[in-house]
């Protein structure tokens, strides 16, 4: 098992006191499997994704990623786990504007010390970015930017890809194309995928689906 989330809870402070976002959420994901996390706005999908990535700290529960308990890690340990085991894809693309497409693609793999030039070249070709490697992020369309973000996440062959609404900023046709590319490459890399999405149509293309409602896993 690549991911095991057990009874995870998270709340945020507000003027009215603490507001629970996640309450006793549990899920698991096998290596090479894909899981769609669906739910309405505010259901806690993105928060759960952030907790799994070690970007935020949970109040209670446990998250085991590739056999490592995230809750037991300090900031540096969580950063190392993200570097080595996780690939992140965001709705806003979040490319590094100061680096060109080629450097963006290779960035995380080089950060993790696992840069494989042949695999990166293959990803670039497969994602249709071969002719765009010297371009800057602000010279690309939204669909092209998201393909760079997917390539960046896959370049290090991470154990788990966490994707937060990866097609949310794209039109339907482009979104379908991008998702198709991502699923194909995830399968090719043997990586697991946890994807947050609003769309049932897109969720149906993944191996499993899990619905969150008001911070709980819907039955």
């Amino acid at each position, binding site marked *: 098992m690549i991911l095991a989330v057990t009874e995870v809870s998270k709340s945020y402070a507000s003027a009215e006191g603490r507001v629970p976002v996640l309450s006793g959420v549990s899920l698991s994901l096998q290596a090479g499997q894909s899981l769609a996390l669906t739910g309405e706005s505010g259901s806690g999908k993105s928060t759960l994704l952030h907790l799994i990535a070690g970007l935020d700290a949970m109040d209670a529960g446990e998250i085991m990623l590739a056999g490592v308990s995230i809750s037991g890690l300090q900031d540096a340990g969580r*950063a190392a786990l*993200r570097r080595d085991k996780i690939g992140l894809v965001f709705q806003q693309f*979040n490319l590094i504007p100061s680096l060109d497409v080629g450097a963006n693609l290779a960035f995380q793999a080089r950060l993790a010390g696992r840069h494989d030039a042949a695999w990166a070249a293959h990803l670039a070709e497969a994602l249709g970015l071969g002719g765009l490697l010297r371009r800057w992020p602000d010279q690309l369309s939204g669909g092209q930017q998201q393909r760079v973000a997917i390539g960046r996440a896959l370049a290090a062959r991470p154990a788990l890809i966490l994707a937060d609404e990866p097609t949310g900023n794209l039109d339907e046709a482009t979104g379908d194309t991008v998702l198709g590319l991502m699923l194909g490459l995830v399968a090719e890399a043997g990586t697991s995928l946890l994807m947050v999405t609003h769309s049932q149509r897109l969720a149906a293309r993944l191996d499993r689906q899990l619905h969150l409602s008001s911070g709980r896993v819907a039955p």
Partner: protein
Amino acid sequence: MIHAALGAILSHWRRHPLQLAMLVTGLAVATALWSGVQAINAEARAAYDRAAGVLGQDRLDRLVGSDGTDLTIEGFARLRRAGWAVSPVLEGQLDGGLRILGIEPLTLPRGAAMAGAPGLASGDLTGFLVGEVVFAAPETLARPEVAATLAGLMARPAPDLPPMTVLADIGLAARLSGQPEAVTALILDPNRPAPGPVPAGLILKPAAPDDGIARLTDSFHLNLTAFAVLAFAVGIFIVHSAIGLAFEQRRGVMRTLRALGLSARMLGALVLVELLVLALIGGSIGIGLGYLLAAALLPDVAATLGGLYGAAVPGVLELRAAWVVAGIGMAVAGTLLAAGQGLWQVWQLPPLAIARPQAWAGAGAATRRLQVLAGLALWAGAALALTSGTGLWAGFAVLTGLLLGAALLLPTLLSAGLFLGARWSRGVVAHWFWADTRHQLPGLSLALMALLLAVSANVGVGTMVASFRATFTGWLDQRLASELYLTAESPSQAAEIRGWLLPRVDAVLPILSVEVPLGGPSNSQPGEVFGVADHATYRDKWPLLAGVPGVWDAIARGDGVLINEQMSLRQGLGLGDMVALPGGALPVAGVYSDYGNPAPQAMLGLSTFERRFPGKAALRFALRLPPDEVAAMAKALTKRFDLGEGALVDQAAVKAFSLRVFERTFAVTAALNTLTLGVAGIAMLASLLTLASLRLPQLAPVWAMGLTQRRLAGLDLVRTLVLAMGTALLALPLGLALAWVLLAVVNVEAFGWRLPMQVFPADWLRLLLAALVAALVAGVFPALRLMQRQPADLLRIFANER
């Protein structure tokens, strides 16, 4: 509607208090440095006006002795009888450094501005003539040594008199100063024509178009003003930075206000009101700070002006309406200048404009190209001013073009360096670091330009001062070659002392001097002619810059004259050119350096001097003797001849005094230099804090991919240091160019002498360290804030709706 709209616009500052603080700080420091210097200038100029008003100095034609000797009351009476409308003036010295000015109120021309003496202007002379009355400024009268000197006299306050000056009837002045029957000059009534040609033995000294001291000190004040403008510009960089971001961050609000029915004109007016209020707040704080700054610097400025030009300036500051109003005006003008672009955009804002705060920090390729072109154009202008311009303003035009051009070229030069850094870097983090630093450059470029100006000004002025110091010290060694200098009280005492000294010392060198106008009819200036002995002291040591072959033989024979550098430069006199002197013109045999003296000076051989100025007896002597015998000789002389304080001055004391005057001369410049560097540090801090929030979208993904906040903060600090170091390194050659312009162009125009430029790498190292410390101080706080940011702040970057 207006109230609601203004509330919405102003609410931004409640949410961003740091930005508001930076804006007000920028305005306050810019105004403070500007108004502080203006306060000093205003105080000094007021002092010159007071001096000129009392003396009628060079504002009226006057008759003086053609050989530099004093006139007499008898001569005055003779001229009056011959129909000359003249009035005698006597200048003398009293104990305690007090200057006394004697006038004859009954004959004083009505046009003479005698503001210092109450009653004179209105024609009421009773208060002036009854009893032994003297007038002086209240601050002068308050000094204990003055009170002692004036004991027994009726001292009356006259606020408009310059410091350490006493005005009295000429008879009283003659008695108090020990110059019976003497007259320094005869003032001519401008309303009554001269009855004939100027009598023999007298020369007409025409009225100067403006006040002499003010003219001499203009360059000093211009230097200070130039610094103030530089510091103001650096402060305005901060203002521009804060206002620019505030405009961009509020575009959303402004768009909404427009959509809700507020006209562009009304919106622009509200923003203008907001800016004016901010300018008034920042300007008022700046005026207060400027007053404190001026009060702290004024004693040094007063000492400088006194030491360098003999201008008396009080060391106490008055709050003058002129510079307060001018300071507020500058604050408003600076704010509008800094906000001009934003204000224009508000006026032109389409209702559907999109807020892009990040775009504010960026600069497009077209903008960068324009910057480079403008920078090159400014450098071309500077080169043109250097080759074709004349006068002090041309010098400042060169400086302005050089500095502003470099500032505009700075981002492109740094960008090229960072590009190379990225290309040559190994490792992904290093590569990202260089690339990201280059990406941040537009947002930091204003602050870096400010740092460039501050560091280059420091290098330039520092090099100038250090060159000056090194040259000046060497020059003092040459110029003050004799071990002991003696001034006798009378010709008879001088003769007695000389006779006593001759068998006891190696040489007794008489020093004779006379004040005469030097130069041609069109460019004559008050100057001094010296007579010196033909001795190895001069032949071996005198700081000659140029000389004909056998120059000292020519001087000894009376076949030539030596002139100082400023006379040579200002009057265009080279070797062989004829110099008009009493008793006939002589060719220039040599030119010598004469730092610290603004007036023309000439030197003749002793016998030539005595022939041309027969009435002058030598009272001053330079004594040559072994250095270890100086103390004993001084003691013996004092005892034997009952010499008063100041009659003997040893070489070391003169050098120490001269160096002290020199150091104070540049104390103000050094203080302004440090303050400018400090303001540049604040500009960096302002920019870094401003960029901190804008940078999160670029940092958050890197953090998400596995770099810790601590490491990112460390890299951010290193980035600030790298940019500061790059800027400071580029500022070095710029500063040296600046030093060259100051030494070879501005100084020559301002002071009349040119100094050899010397470089001091140890000073550069200290300055580089200072720049790095300033950058470190500016960078630490934003880095700490980044390190301590809550993950939620970074996660918000990834949120689907921000």
